[in-house]
């Protein structure tokens, strides 16, 4: 009886230890592109904080608005002060799941399609979103790519230039290479 319980105990313990792995990075990239034919409006953030769990597909991207860098500093100032109001709402976040994570074989190098579904919070407004992307496994380390369409007005981001020099819909592309 003693042996049996001991065996059961270790079986349970080992099950607990090998259940899943959390992948994370603090140097992920997000590109914000709201360019119009009139003006190039591109900001890049190279300090994106992201985590992902391989078993459940739960994934989080978190970015400081102030870490978006623009080629034109005045544009960066306007992005922060007039549009995203970063002093009031410093972060943008995506919290969701890669719904088809079961099809990804983390042990085998290759490219796998990934479908994102979750909540995107920008400018303190949360919206349910879904997006298509890709998981690339190279030497056991996954890289996640995804592209989200963001309707600026839907997040309470307003301004007279939106729809003119600034596109109505921004493309937010994510690229996170996990360690």
């Amino acid at each position, binding site marked *: *009886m003693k042996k049996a319980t001991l065996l059961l105990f270790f079986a349970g313990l080992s099950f607990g230890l090998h259940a899943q792995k959390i992948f994370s990075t603090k140097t992920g990239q997000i590109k914000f592109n709201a360019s119009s034919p009139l003006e190039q409006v591109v900001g890049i953030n190279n300090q994106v904080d992201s985590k992902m769990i391989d078993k459940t597909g739960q994934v989080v991207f978190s970015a400081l608005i102030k870490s978006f860098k623009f080629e*034109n500093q005045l544009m*960066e100032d306007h992005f922060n*002060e*007039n549009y995203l109001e970063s002093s009031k709402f410093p972060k943008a976040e995506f919290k969701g799941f890669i719904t088809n994570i079961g099809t990804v074989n983390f042990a085998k190098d290759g490219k796998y399609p990934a479908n994102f579904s979750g909540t995107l919070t920008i400018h303190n407004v949360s919206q349910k979103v879904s997006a298509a992307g890709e998981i690339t496994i190279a030497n056991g380390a996954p890289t996640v790519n995804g592209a989200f369409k963001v309707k600026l007005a839907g997040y309470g981001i307003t301004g007279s230039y939106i729809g003119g*020099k600034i596109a109505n819909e921004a493309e937010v592309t994510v690229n996170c290479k996990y360690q």
Partner: protein
Amino acid sequence: METYQHKTSAKLFWCIALISIVYLFPHNAFAQTPDLFKMQDEQDKKDAKEKTDITTSIFKSTRLINGQTIENTGRGILDLRISHRFGFVNTGSYNFFGLDQATMRLGLDYGITDRLEVGIGRSTFNKEFDGFFKYRILRQSTGKVNMPISISLAATGVWRSLKDTVTTFPINYSDHFSFSGQLILARKFNDYFSLQLVPTMVHYNIVPTKAVKNDLYSMGIGFRQRLSKRVNLTGEYYYQVTQLGGYTNSASVGFDIETGGHVFQLFFTNSTGINESSFITQTQGLWGNGGIRFGFNISRVFSVVKPKNLAKTTY
């Protein structure tokens, strides 16, 4: 027999208890799927305390109206500035209330680093050339480092190239120079209101009379009040503690209007000169009798050097 049976059921009970402990308890303690959403929320709270958030856009431009603000042009950014003042309003309808005349300064500013800005300019007034540098010493911030104010140092040199009037004494080449040193102390109180204090010393290599000191001290004060997303009310006043003699204090009020790649400044000022020595210590107009000028500054920025973290991106 009965007692034995009792023993078995007791053993069975403990066995079931153990199994349930082993299989259910660890599922909560070790094997439970960690919730990234919660982890992220906790990390956000920690980050907010550990990160230093530098306060940006204390003022909208590197100049308030005539004088410097706490702001610098960013690293690798070239800023072409055209500062234009019309004539005095009180010259009447004959001069179309000053619009017939003009005095201006053409300038180029460049951000060498995020903290150091240099610039050159040429003014109509006294045919002056000027050069300056401005260095950020402290930056207002919140978070881990809580700094209530920003401090910058600005130094300007002015060379007057206007031909000398005939004097009874010889004039040296060095007499055409004047210099100013300024400490700029600024605070953004909220998204709507910023204030700066600018203790200033202006040094003239030559002054009109022996009674006037070569070093002149003054104190500047300026503010920005946001009216809408793109329009700000600005004001600037320099009080002269010691004077050249015969001049008034510079006082200006105006609007900063932002349009895409420009900051457009429209204002009224009683000063004619646009560099530090001339507007702080050689202002002639009097607000009281309409001795003011309508003026505007246009700033257009160009990115000369791409920011590093943009260049290394993989996109």
